[in-house]
């Protein structure tokens, strides 16, 4: 159900809305001030009650992730690392928080550091986001000057430091172990797991990696209380709590970022918030949460028998299924980053697939043969389809190549490249065949309206 909120976004667009003064005058830093006086275990318990599912794409429960960290005092420092690499095509929410509400990020980092027993936090921002980096550094300097960061934050004997670290242009550095290698000054190649970051992460020390939005919502969690926060969501009963940022781009009248209670549907995102399809066109398909999720057609119907939680959704359009981590996982899709890409029927789905596979081919780090070779192979097939030189056999090979990538790689990039290919080719089979049988003739031949 559509419920707009403004916990993270209330100062967006206001003059100086990103300053410490504006942040504090709307209640900022009260949560961290209080959290730093609580026992560490109580902080984690409260975070668990909030059911904040990781906003970086995998949807893991944040409080639970924090609880995996070893007890402090094991001889090694602990680190909090914030993933601000935001590179998943279609995703543009974290940038708005860093640029327009950087103090919420910092306050969330303080709460997170305290919860996991860390005294230092690195915010890994992709290099291109120069304004975001500047706003974060400015906010850090403001918070240090006030004594909120440093040796005695809010007068507590619990030193806290936050640093901004920059990448240098590589989508794969958003994968958390690749990000850790990059933070350590290495090539950004994903690591084999185990060990998991909570055991041996940054600099070989216990580390939690959280997405920007995941921590930025924590001040709200501790202001409202975990349970009250969770209940803002329609999916509280699914342990998917609170509010989050939803994005919509592509062929809608009002692309943008909208903060809403969890439980919003794609239909509400596209038509109520996004203003509907541009140019009087019809909806061709929607990718729910960043390009690594499978595309959905408007006529897809939810069908999950023998699951009481799905009784109210079975038989309905996928556009009316609430955008939650588990509902989307159970129907075989993925929620991802909750930033949807909308294609109208002016767009050619074959060209959309070609565009995305070029991206994946370009961004594969090349460590695993199935990913490196598979993405290259898929890219060549889609290029040939568009040129009109592919055969139906080659189109059928897409399934085999993508299936060989899935599950056979070091990191989830491989699956993220394979899943969209499988979905596009299966769901837009007719358009792919048109290209092949018509020697490159297609229905629209373009992506832009």
């Amino acid at each position, binding site marked *: 159900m559509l419920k707009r909120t403004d916990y993270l976004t209330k100062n967006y667009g206001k003059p100086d809305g990103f300053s410490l003064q504006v942040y504090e005058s709307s209640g900022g830093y009260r949560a961290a001030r209080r959290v730093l006086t609580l026992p560490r275990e109580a902080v984690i318990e409260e975070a668990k009650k909030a059911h904040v599912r990781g906003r970086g794409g995998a949807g893991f429960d944040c409080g639970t992730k924090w609880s995996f960290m070893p007890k402090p005092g094991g001889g090694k*420092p602990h680190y909090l690392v914030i993933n601000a690499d*935001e*590179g*998943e*095509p*279609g*995703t*543009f929410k*974290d*940038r708005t928080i860093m640029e327009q509400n950087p103090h919420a990020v910092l306050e969330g980092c303080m709460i997170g550091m305290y919860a996991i027993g860390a005294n230092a936090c690195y915010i890994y921002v*992709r*290099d*291109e*986001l*120069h*304004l975001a980096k500047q706003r974060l550094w400015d906010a850090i300097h403001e918070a240090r000057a006030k004594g909120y960061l440093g040796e005695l934050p809010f007068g507590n004997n619990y030193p806290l430091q936050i*640093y901004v*670290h*920059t*990448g*240098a*242009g*590589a*989508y794969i550095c958003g994968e958390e172990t690749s990000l850790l290698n*990059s*933070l*350590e*000054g*290495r*090539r*950004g*190649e994903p690591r084999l797991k185990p060990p998991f970051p909570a055991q041996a992460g940054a*600099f070989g020390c216990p580390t939690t990696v959280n997405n920007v939005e995941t921590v930025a919502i924590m001040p709200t969690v501790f202001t409202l209380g975990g349970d009250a926060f969770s209940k803002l969501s329609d999916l509280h009963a699914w342990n998917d709590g609170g509010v989050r940022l939803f*994005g*919509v*781009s*592509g*062929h809608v009248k009002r*692309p*943008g*970022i909208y903060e809403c209670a969890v439980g919003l549907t794609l239909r509400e995102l596209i038509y109520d918030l996004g203003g509907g399809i541009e140019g009087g066109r019809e909806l061709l398909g929607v990718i729910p949460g960043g*390009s690594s999720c499978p595309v959905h057609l408007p006529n897809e119907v939810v069908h999950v028998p023998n699951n009481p939680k799905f009784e109210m959704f079975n038989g309905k359009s996928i556009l009316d299924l609430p955008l939650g981590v588990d509902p989307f996982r159970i129907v075989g899709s993925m929620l991802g980053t909750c*930033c949807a*890409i*909308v*294609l109208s029927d002016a*767009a050619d789905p074959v*060209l*959309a697939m070609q*565009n*995305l596979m070029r*991206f994946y081919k*370009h*961004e594969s780090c090349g460590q695993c043969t199935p990913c490196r070779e598979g993405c290259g192979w898929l890219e060549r097939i889609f290029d040939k389809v568009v040129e009109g030189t592919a055969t139906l056999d080659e189109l059928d090979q897409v399934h085999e190549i993508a299936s060989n990538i899935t599950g056979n790689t070091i990191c989830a990039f491989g699956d993220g490249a394979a899943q969209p290919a499988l979905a596009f080719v299966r769901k837009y089979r007719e358009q792919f065949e048109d290209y092949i049988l018509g020697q490159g003739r297609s229905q629209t031949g373009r*992506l*832009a*309206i």
Partner: protein
Amino acid sequence: MAFVLSQERERELTEILSRYPNKMAACIPVLHLCQNANGNWLSPDAIQFVADRLELSPAHVKGVVTFYSLFNEHPPGKHQIWVCRTLSCALRGSDAILEHCQKRLGVGVGQTTADGRFTLRTAECLASCGTAPMMQVDKTYYEQLTPEKVDRILAALSKD
């Protein structure tokens, strides 16, 4: 000539080192610092300088430089332009924007204008999909582009 940093940048380097538990972690930030000080590229001397200062092998530093797309091993033009071409931008006309840039500047993707002023490149999703089509010029994002807007931006940059 051996690569050196100005006093101010040397202070910055010291401050960067203070953020991390070891020197290697400063590798990417220090490479950015040197690239910014050196007309936006990393010469072999600059790479050697970073290796010496961070007590790393030149091979390690070179391996890092070649992994990341924003490190240049050759001097680019005075202004670098990146036109985003990933799906959300493509759905809103990035192809036309890129074509327009190519026509205006008279260069292809990856090339630098004869006067050394502009290098034209493409980028993958720059987290600005809601205001597509967009491009980055040096450190600034330009969003909701039209060909006319591109003309105004290029004209302003041609004068400075």
